[in-house]
Structures are given as C-alpha cells and as structure tokens.
C-alpha cells in the first residue's frame, strides 16, 4: 500500500490534470459512480452525517489495527467527494488519520467550489473521519 502522503499527492495530481472546473466535477461524478456498494441495512440514522443537504451515510470498521470506511449518498457528487476521502484514508491506522491535517482538500481547491451546504457537508465528513480515528486510538 502507498503511504498517506503518496495517496494525497495522487489526488492532487489527478485534480490538477483538469483545468476546467466542469471537468474536475466530471471526475468527481465518475468517482461517485465507482464508489463501492454499501449495505442497505447500514443506512441507519446513527451513520448519517449531519450538515449535508443530501443524505450521506458513513461506516467505519476496524480490522487488524486499521480503519476501513464505506459510504453511500443519494447525491452522486457527495459520493464522489467521500470516495476521494475514502481512497486516501481507508486502510490507515487511527494514529495516521488522527495526526493528519486534511489540508490536501484545500490544495485541490474543492472547498471553495462547493455550495455552502456542500462545504459544510465536506467539513462534517472530515470531522467524522477524524472522530472515528480519535476514538479508536
């Protein structure tokens, strides 16, 4: 497995391939469509992330000292965004995740290009991932 830094750099590189915001969104949409299936039975209120206009469920499991995330949403761009985060953070140790500053999200400029509700949603996603990591440490 690549390192956390490598995974983040890969996302930054992917995003910088596209000059146009529309293309960056197309990329997010493709990521969203490719998100791994989520167990319908896991769509429970305790897994719902607050602050999103669209609904987003995020599940965290610990195996062999590492955290694995799965998620689903009724909006595809939300799925694309969470897929991006899952790609970077799933399979890492709680220490790695808790110690990270998540600044690559700022680097790719995504936050500035979301609607305020989506930006809130993104902040909640990050917060939830951090909380899982801190709880499991």
């Amino acid at each position, binding site marked *: 497995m690549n390192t956390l830094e490598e995974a983040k750099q890969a996302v930054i590189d992917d995003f910088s391939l596209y000059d146009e*915001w529309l293309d960056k969104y197309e990329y997010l949409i493709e990521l969203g469509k490719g998100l791994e299936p989520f167990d319908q039975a896991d769509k429970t209120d305790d897994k719902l992330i607050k602050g999103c*206009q*669209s*609904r987003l469920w995020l599940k965290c499991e610990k195996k062999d000292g590492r955290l694995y995330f799965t998620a689903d949403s009724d*909006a*595809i761009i939300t799925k694309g965004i969470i897929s991006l985060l899952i790609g970077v953070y799933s399979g890492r140790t709680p220490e790695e995740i808790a110690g990270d500053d998540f600044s690559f999200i700022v680097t790719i400029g995504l936050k500035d290009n979301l609607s305020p*509700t989506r930006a809130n949603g993104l902040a909640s996603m990050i917060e939830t991932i951090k909380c899982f990591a801190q709880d499991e440490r």
Partner: protein
Amino acid sequence: MEIKEIRNEFPQLSRTVYGKPLVYLDNAATALKPRSVMACYEHLAAEVSSNIHRSVHRVSNEATAEFENARKRVAEFLNAPSERNIVFTSGTTDSINLIASSYGQAFIGRGDEIVISEQEHHSDIVPWQMLAERTGAVIKVWKLEDDLRLGPSSLEKLLGPKTKIVCVSHASNVLGIVTPIKEICALCHRHNIPVCVDGAQGIVHCKVDVQDLDCDFYSFSGHKIYAATGTGVMYAKAKWLEQMPPYRGGGEMIADVTWERTTYADYPFKFEAGTPNITSVPTLVPAIEMLEQMRSLEESSAAVASYVLDALQSDKRITLYGDSSSEKLPIFSFAVKGAHQEDLALVLDKMGVALRSGEMCAAPLMHRLRVTGLLRASFAPYNTIEEARYFVECLGKAIEMLTI
C-alpha cells in the same frame, strides 16, 4: 426599449463565472440591480447622507423628501388609497412578522384560528406559528388541490367564526401559479375575515392594484424587484393600521414620551421605529421605473417562458411541478429522475448557469410533493431566448453526466 438596451442597464449580466458567460436564472431568489438603482444609492450615500424626519437642515430635508417620495411612488405603484397605507420594512419577512405581531396582538387570542395555505414560504408560516405559540391560537392548513392549485371551495370549508386571518401568497416561489387573490378576498370578506397576501413573487410579474384585489395586507421585498436589498413594503388597509399597536418601540414612532406614559405617532410612522433604511428605500423609485419599463418586453418574456415550459414538459426524465397553462409566473421547479437536485445545480453552475436547488424555504410544500428538494429556474424579463436555450441544452448535458 429593446432587450439589448435593457440588458446593458444590468452590469451583472455581462459577468462571467468559470470563464463562461453567467446565465442568471435565480431571479426569484433575488433580482439583479440596474445602474439607475446603483446610481440612486450612490447619490444618496455620497450627497444626501443625513437622517430623516428630524433635523431642520437642508440635507436632512432632501433626505426626507427622497424617502417620502418613495412612499408616494410605491403607493401609486400598488394603487393604494394613500401613501399612508405604505409602511417601509426590511423585506417581506419583516412585513409579515410585523403583521403577525401587531395584528396578532390586537385581534388574535387563545383558540382563534389562522388559515395558511400549503404553498407558503417559511416566512409566511413561522411568524404565525410563533404567534400561535404565544397566544394559544390554532393554525389551519389550506391544502392544495391535486393539480397543485388553491381551491376557493376548500378554503371556504376551513372558515368559521374563530378564523381571524387568511394568509396566502400571490404566487408560490416554487410553483409560480398565480393565486386568484381577488376571488379569495371576496370570499373571506363575506365571512368578515381579512386576507394577508405575501406578494414577494407576485409583485415581480403581476400588475398589482390593492384596491381592486381588496386585500387587507400586501407585502413584498425590494430586492426582488431590482431595488437595493434591505428594503420592503407592507401595505395595509387604513382600518387595520389604525387599530394595530406598534410592533417595535423606539425613536420616530412616538408622539410624546414620558416616564409615565408614551403616546404613539400616527401610522405609518408608528410602525417605523428607529432610523429606517434611508439610503436604500429611495432606490425603490428607479427600481419600479425599470420594472414598468420592462413590461414592454412582454412578448419576449412570454416566448422564453413558453419555450422553457415546453422543453421541460416534453422531457420524460423531468417532472415539473405547477405546470399550469394559465397564469403562471416564469418560475419552473422540477425534479429529474435519477439525479439529485444539488448535483444538477453544481454541474450547471460549472457551465455558467445559476439556479436554485433544495427545499426553497418551503419544507411543508416539499413534504406535500414528496420530494427532498427541487431544482428551480426562475426568469426575469432581461433573460433572453438564447439563455433559455443554453439552459435547456446544459440541463440535458448535466442529466446525462449524472445518470449515464
């Protein structure tokens, strides 16, 4: 004036987003501002900064004249019996809060009933709920018919001896269908019940004559009719303005103040405590002028509206809500099968198209329609047929991107 000349008056129409021309289709949320409105604001801020109604100096007199002239102009615009029927507020929301508080205090008590239509914006629901909570009054919902219209006969069944007011919008900000206000007022008045009209959307597109409609209250926001933000109007019949107590206390709304007893100024001033929005209220004058000028674009507006209506109705992937063929404002709210409204809005944004997504401040209506939200394109007379075509083309592309 030609549409091209009119468009030149709105600088924001020539801006770009993401390197693409902005196609602004969020006019029902707020309208763009013409140069005349900005010039008026700038003139007042630069040359006529002075408080009104109080000082004796020259600039203060000029500022007062500008402010009171706006009251006259608004009265004329609504065909109100007198400018004294016009109370300036900060917007529709503020106007309705004023009515709920003041009319409520004078006329609504425990067990009384407030009828509110199902299509209302939160700003015509929540102030009444707050009043009901304070007083023990009861809210009755006037449901939409199956075709999403408001039926007078359904209303009549709700009216009774305890009904103290009927609250309805001239047109919903979601459905855009024009409510038959005149008929509703006649019906309610036969039962001696006043009608409070939320005109936030209606005022933009309908010619409003409050005496002909015979409504008791009519509220609207300046920012939706091209005036500066933070301006609003509450029209009310004199009999109510006389009987309603003031809603906020402070300077300018009093006749005499002593520690023992304060007497209030006459209406409309008793409802305008404190320094009003003196730099912005006078922008209502050039704004109304622009609105009236744009009525000459009727033909082009009608062509745009019918093109959009057609395009949305003929697309099998789209469900349009409020697809009335008769009187409908150019407000189009719809859902797309298999695509979330916010995804669509985000993708369209990247193409330069600005529109609204979500509950649109009408959660009860969303529940009725059984949707979590909708996408809304709302047009102004300055929007061209080319913009409409671009929107439809982009919408098609966005749907494909999201669903295939």
